[in-house]
């Protein structure tokens, strides 16, 4: 018989798995599961939540359409993540600092960038980075945003500002050492940062289960001493309520918070067109489609007499028309010049660069 071990690792592992259920306000059948939280919203607010999600879904559909027509650059689809993205960003204030990833363009627009600028960004025109929103441009390097978030948050704290940093990454992003370092730094400095992990089940083709043995991604915040919570990422009321509570807690000087939103990316990873059917079965995805954040809000609002199919159709068309206008505006921009790029590489172009600039200016004038 095997000797009894001095320590029961299985028990410890089990303890790490015994975690509270994700926070919810309305479930997928549109049943209110937290009445107090639900009752805190006015009818107007409920309608606004729905409108934001319809807007994001329309943006998704229209940009995918533009992509098929070859009129977009790099763009990451967002269908499925409306509650997670809109719910959390609606808890933001103008003075807050946003650190978005490439899939967080809708939040960037909500925070003050224009749709036209988003299209420029997508196409790789620098004008897309001239937005007035208090935000970094969308981050491509997975994990990098978390480090920068710690710095932004520490800076805000040192400035004594009434503001916090909102940072987004994905489930895959939490595997980068940077994400731990960022949270650990923010924790060590008690900096006002809200780390949002949009756990959408896949990092390109790699499922969440392959990213880590950790039962939840919130456990990764535990090591940094940061309170973390899982939220139903298909429930916009829960996403908003938790983000708002987190913001208040952080602003009060309590240090950072991490939120893991359990959501889903319905389609391909990017508009470059990977084929999700190669790594994901329809059956496995169906439960997520059933949990669609728009379905449950639509039902609640319809039952209250605040919403109709016709209204949603009208709204969608209005939004899509505005995106078409934005694309037209984006088309009208002058192409970027190499001489301009050279001019902005340093504050004062070096003598070497002056020569290159003159060379390109001459070329460009022809």
């Amino acid at each position, binding site marked *: 018989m095997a000797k009894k071990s001095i320590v029961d690792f299985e028990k410890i592992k089990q303890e790490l798995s015994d975690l509270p259920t994700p926070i919810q306000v309305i479930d997928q059948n549109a049943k209110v599961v937290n009445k107090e939280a639900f009752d805190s919203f006015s009818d107007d607010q409920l309608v606004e939540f729905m409108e934001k999600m319809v807007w994001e879904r329309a943006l998704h559909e229209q940009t995918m359409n533009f992509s098929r027509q070859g009129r977009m650059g790099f763009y990451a689809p967002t269908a499925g993540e409306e509650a997670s993205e809109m719910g959390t960003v609606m808890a933001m204030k103008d003075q807050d600092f946003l650190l978005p990833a490439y899939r967080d363009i809708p939040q960037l627009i909500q925070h003050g960038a224009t749709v036209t600028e988003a299209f420029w960004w997508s196409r790789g025109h*620098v004008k897309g980075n001239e937005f007035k929103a208090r935000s970094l441009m969308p981050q491509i390097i997975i994990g990098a945003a978390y480090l920068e978030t*710690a710095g932004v948050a520490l800076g805000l704290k040192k400035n004594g500002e009434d503001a916090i940093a909102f940072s987004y990454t994905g489930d895959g992003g939490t595997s980068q050492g940077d994400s731990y370092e*960022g949270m650990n730094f923010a924790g060590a400095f008690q900096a006002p940062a809200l780390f949002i992990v949009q756990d959408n089940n896949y990092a390109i083709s790699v499922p969440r289960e392959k990213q880590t043995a950790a039962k939840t991604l919130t456990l990764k915040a535990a090591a940094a001493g940061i309170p973390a919570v899982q939220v139903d990422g298909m429930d916009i009321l829960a996403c908003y309520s938790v983000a708002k509570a987190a913001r208040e807690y952080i602003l009060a000087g309590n240090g950072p918070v991490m939120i893991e939103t359990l959501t889903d990316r319905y389609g391909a990873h990017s508009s470059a067109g990977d084929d999700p059917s190669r790594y994901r079965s329809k059956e496995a995805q169906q439960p997520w489609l059933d949990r669609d954040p728009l379905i449950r809000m639509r039902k609640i609002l319809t039952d209250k007499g605040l919403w109709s199919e016709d209204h949603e159709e009208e709204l969608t068309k209005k939004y899509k028309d505005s995106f078409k206008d934005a694309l037209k505006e984006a088309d009208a921009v002058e192409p970027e010049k190499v001489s301009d790029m050279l001019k902005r*590489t340093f504050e004062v172009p070096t003598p070497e660069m002056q020569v290159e600039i003159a060379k390109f200016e001459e070329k460009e004038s022809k």
Partner: protein
Amino acid sequence: MTKKSYIQAITDALDIELQEDPKTLIFGEDVGKNGGVFRTTQGLQEKYGEDRVFDTPLAESGILGLSIGLGLTGWRPLPEIQFSGFTLEGVDSIAGQMARMRFHFNGKQTSPITIRSPYGGGTHTAEMHSDNFENFFVGVPGLRVVMPSNPYDAKGLLISSIENNDPVLYLENLKLYRSMKDDIPDEKYSVPLDQANVVQEGNDVTLVAYGAQVQEAQKAAEELAKDNISAEVIDLRTVSPIDTQTIFKSIEKTHHVVVVQEAQKMAGVGAQVASAIAEEAIMSLDAPIGRVAAPNSVYPFALAEEAWIPRKDEIVAKAKEIINY
């Protein structure tokens, strides 16, 4: 004027900048109470407090990423990376993020960051502590790489680097830290970035060097003088961007050039100097461009470094070779 070592000159510059600009922040591993593993930040935390000079967790990518965020929020970060080999942990923060901030934002955001880090061989350190990684970073658009060769320049160039609004990788030569002293002004002064320095004038051959190799080149010039060869010694001071005009002007006079560097020969600073000459000033030359550099191997462990690092004699030999071409 006070006789000061290279390291004291650096501390001087940091002290002045912390005093003058309340937005400057020094942080890194062991920079606080310990004053840095080489004591470069000695006394600064005591003087300016833990809000301005502080230790971070042990993570280079964290330190460099933090710098970007602090820069974005109006601070002037002066991170220290304990040894330049460890900058590799943070290459994305340096090359992928901070160096392109101004470009990305069309000039509306900057990264006023000066990363300080020791580099260079000859002090028998452990692996990854002596590497000359400037060759990596000179290829990064938007990043300046500054490598002072003496205490006077160390202070003046550091002040210029800190006050510059673009990111600077300021590399401090480990061997020079305590091996030389100069009379330097106690007050603030600056040495301009992007400008090479003609350390010594001459007519027969131009020796282009930077960092600790400037001393070797000066020693070589002394040696050459014994044979009536008059060498002009140029210290690049900033290795990216490179001040090629000063080099071109010199070779119009000397018609011979030897480019010297401590780093491996492959790509990098010397290669860039040689190619700029080949491209634009080849007609000034009477002989091929001479190069003296470390071999293209990984930086050796301590025992082999004496043989590996280029020395005066190699420079003398190369200079004679091209003069007699």
